[in-house]
């Protein structure tokens, strides 16, 4: 990576952004996560939070403990010696009921792409996705790896309420919604899983760097999973590979 990256940008007096690129790229994401892991393993006094995003790591710090310019120097030093070890990714199979009232754009998307519903579902479920970041809302997963044929612009006018658990497509990205709210993305199904539940011992299901595959399930199987999730039973475990 030559040119202007890496660079460290001030975000006011209590945060900065370590930028490794301005594109969405798996190698960049791996380095961001490796830098966050490095800082978690060998902490710098004064760093309060680390927020990995697609192409940058936001570092929230307390200027009473470490000043920004000193933190810049330390972060540049860490970057120089940073090694990206291939740690096993956590892999998740996410059950999805395609269509239905939550997946309200499925038919329109199929028409737009001149595909049958079955072909569209198969294409969406055939890819492996990478969780690039958790952001916007608690546990909301931004996924990369959407097959190019499924890339679709967002709606001009966002809808006021999309359910938690909706499976979305926004531009080149895919998503799994974690809380209900407004969205301009298109939605093709829902998962019985809850990405976010503040009352669970593990409130957040996914983290940056995880791998996700979607597994089509029937309404009946989804209803069974819904009951298990409502009863607080674990319905999905990470596979390490």
């Amino acid at each position, binding site marked *: 990576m030559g040119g202007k990256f890496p660079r460290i940008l001030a975000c*006011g007096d209590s945060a900065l*952004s370590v930028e490794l690129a301005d594109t969405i790229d798996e190698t960049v994401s791996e380095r961001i996560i490796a830098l*966050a892991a490095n800082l978690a393993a060998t902490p710098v006094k004064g760093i309060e*939070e680390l927020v990995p995003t697609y192409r940058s790591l936001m570092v929230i710090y307390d200027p009473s403990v470490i000043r920004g310019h000193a933190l810049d120097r330390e972060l540049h030093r860490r970057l120089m010696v940073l090694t990206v070890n291939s740690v096993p990714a956590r892999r998740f199979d996410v059950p999805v009921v395609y269509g239905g009232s939550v997946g309200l754009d499925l038919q329109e998307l199929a028409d737009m792409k001149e595909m049958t519903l079955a072909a569209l579902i198969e294409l969406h479920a055939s890819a492996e996705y990478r969780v690039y*970041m958790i952001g916007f*809302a*608690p*546990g909301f997963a931004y996924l990369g790896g959407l097959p190019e044929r499924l890339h679709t612009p967002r709606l001009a006018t966002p809808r006021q309420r999309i359910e938690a658990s909706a499976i979305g497509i926004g531009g080149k990205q895919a998503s799994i919604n*974690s809380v209900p709210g407004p969205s301009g993305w298109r939605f093709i199904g829902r998962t019985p899983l809850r990405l976010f539940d503040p009352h669970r011992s593990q409130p957040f299901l996914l983290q*940056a760097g995880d791998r996700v595959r979607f597994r089509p399930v029937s309404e009946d199987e989804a209803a069974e999973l819904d009951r298990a999730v409502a009863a607080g039973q674990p319905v999905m475990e990470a596979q390490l590979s």
Partner: protein
Amino acid sequence: MSFLVIQQIGPMATVQDLGRRGLSHAGVSGSGPMDMPSFRIANALVGNVENSAAIEFGGTGGSFSVLRPARIAVTGGAVDIRLGKRKLSPWESYTLLPDDVLSIGALRDCVWGYLAVSGGVDTVPVLGSRATHVRTGLGGYEGRRLQAGDRLPLGRDNPGVNLALRQLWRRSGGPVRIVPGPQDDYYSAETQRAFLKASFIVSPARDRMAQMLDGHAVHAEGGHDIVSDGTCAGSIQVPASGRPIVLMAERQTTGGYPKIATVATVDLPRLAQVPSGRHVSFAAISREKAEELLIAERTALRECLANLVEKPETDDVSGGMPS
């Protein structure tokens, strides 16, 4: 257990504490008070520990009663406060008895006020905090804005005297100070100069999440879309409409608009407190300067909180500053 009974309340009131820290990486907004110094002073005046939960209200307060005697304090700015027919002053504490009704009117010349009650609001913490995040329904009282009829549980109240400030807590004046960036390179030098010269109007389109600015459109020559990255309180982002948005306490954790500048932490409460329709302008300072201002303000606030004066017990209704 005692309760704070809400008889009437304004439309923008929530339970807040210092905020939900350490979960930005999981998409969880910090939330917390819009005006941190005013919040902290309110808690200190009633003898609460600093992370006690209190009520934040926007515009109009409400009327309140308690089941057991408690100390109360209102901060934020000038406001009519009455205990029955007695007129009370903000920025000092009083004893509220079970037969009393505390009425808090509309704030004058500011937007956000705080009502702290001794013992603190004792709702169940969610993800380590009692702060309400309205958008996602997290924390506070049932994850929502407060309504008439709500009964907020209060924590154990340590006996203590009523307190007042030794000196007024003054907000700085002049332009709101900003640190350029992180995406200032999306804006031409001319656009950045015009941004600093402009007089913006504080839009009524505002909530705990964001403050819109009207009166001067800002065009990002480098485009209004970036690959999403992290946001912080005070980020000034500009979507394609050209209307700047300042992200506030309840901001989303990541965003896809280029951020021309970040409001200095010391001036963010001041911006939050500017009434809608008023003009604001910005002045650029270095990150180092903004850090120094923040460190100095923390010291000043610590001293302010450590030097509260005891009010004479017999003169609880004097309402004045100590001479």
